[in-house]
């Protein structure tokens, strides 16, 4: 390969100046969190995966519901089972056994297949991969259309959540985590027996000791934490971050459901003269 000039000659003085920039930190917080409320979270309904291993599907559906609530104010219940089975199908490696599914396949399924309403695809009494045509059609109109960002850094995740975006996390799961009440501490998150990996959704934030921290929605029913929710302590997050299998994926947008239409029957116009554009319409 020939040596090609780049057209820029840097004098010793300039080089010293450039090297001096090494003292400037490469990452720093731009966002001002002081004006935020101490806590905020989506009021979406907590669900229960029971004995199934569909946590990734539940986290994916909660992510859909969260985005829907933020964008339209509607509380829509999406189907975790649909998300679970379509992600197993997308993976080409997990379908046929209730043994969980990967994070990448949840993203693939959310992007390619979308997600239908819970009423169209409730969790079956035992593992089944059957999906109805109605459910598939409904889901196709509600796809994840935004980006996915790999967020493992605490500050980045807090910035993401305080922008009212949602995050799906995948972490180690220990037996002591069943005892979480309102704060998920390092002691609770790393004690007892190792049970495997568990996916959940982050749906807001709360303040612990003056530190804004992620609020997590679990899929173990309302009996877990405080109505299925808890606040994650920073020490636990930093410990998770050192695990290569830990995920925190930020999702952006979905195709929203059409906001509920108003019933205009019997409506009386009280705003003065009927506008020209209304006249003649039925």
């Amino acid at each position, binding site marked *: 390969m020939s040596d090609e000039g780049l057209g820029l000659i840097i004098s010793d003085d300039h080089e010293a100046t450039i090297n001096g920039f090494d003292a400037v930190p490469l990452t720093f917080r731009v966002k001002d969190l002081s004006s935020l409320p101490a806590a905020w979270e989506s009021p979406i309904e907590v669900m229960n995966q029971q004995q199934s*291993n569909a946590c990734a599907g539940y*986290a994916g559906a909660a992510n859909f519901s969260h985005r829907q609530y933020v964008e339209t104010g509607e509380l829509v219940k999406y189907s975790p089972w649909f998300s679970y089975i379509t992600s197993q199908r997308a993976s080409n490696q997990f379908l046929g056994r209730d043994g969980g599914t*990967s994070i990448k396949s949840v993203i693939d399924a959310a992007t390619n297949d979308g997600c239908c309403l819970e009423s169209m695809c409730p969790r079956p009494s035992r593992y089944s991969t059957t999906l109805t045509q109605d459910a598939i059609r409904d889901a196709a109109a509600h796809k994840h259309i935004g980006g996915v960002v790999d967020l493992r850094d605490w500050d980045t995740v807090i910035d993401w959540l305080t922008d009212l975006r949602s995050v799906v996390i995948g972490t180690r799961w220990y037996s002591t985590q069943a005892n979480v009440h309102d704060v998920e501490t390092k002691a609770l998150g790393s004690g007892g027996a190792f049970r495997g*990996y*568990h*996916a959940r959704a982050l749906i807001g934030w709360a303040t612990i000791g003056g530190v804004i921290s992620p609020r997590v929605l679990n899929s173990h029913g309302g009996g877990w934490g405080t109505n299925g929710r808890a606040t994650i302590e920073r020490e636990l997050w930093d410990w998770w971050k050192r695990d*290569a299998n830990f995920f925190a994926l930020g999702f952006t947008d979905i195709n929203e459901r059409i906001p509920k239409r108003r019933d205009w029957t019997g409506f009386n116009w009280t705003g003065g003269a009927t506008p020209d554009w209304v006249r003649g319409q039925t």
Partner: protein
Amino acid sequence: MDRHEAVMSCVAQMRKLPQFSSSSDDQKAKAAAFAFDQLHEDAMEHLAMGCSDDDVRHYAKAATKRIHRKLTEQYKGSAGANEFEQANGFPFLLILGLLPTLYNWWLMLKKWMEW
């Protein structure tokens, strides 16, 4: 000890081997970071959320093999560690040697957690 610490410990062990004696600390740190990132990417695709502890053990074994194979195929036919080092900034052989050892560390960690 978690997996990241295990990676760093492996690198520390590798320093004692003659073929890595000339590698700098910076190169070893890059090798560890590379191994960590490879494991993370692999887990995103192949580790099932909702799996049991037994599944995690099987996954860790398979992931180590996959990354080993991937690197072997990727750099098949290259002139060797020196060329790879020039192109990527860290020693190829270190990565290859690191992965099986990492798996052993993971098994030790697993046993330690079960006590």
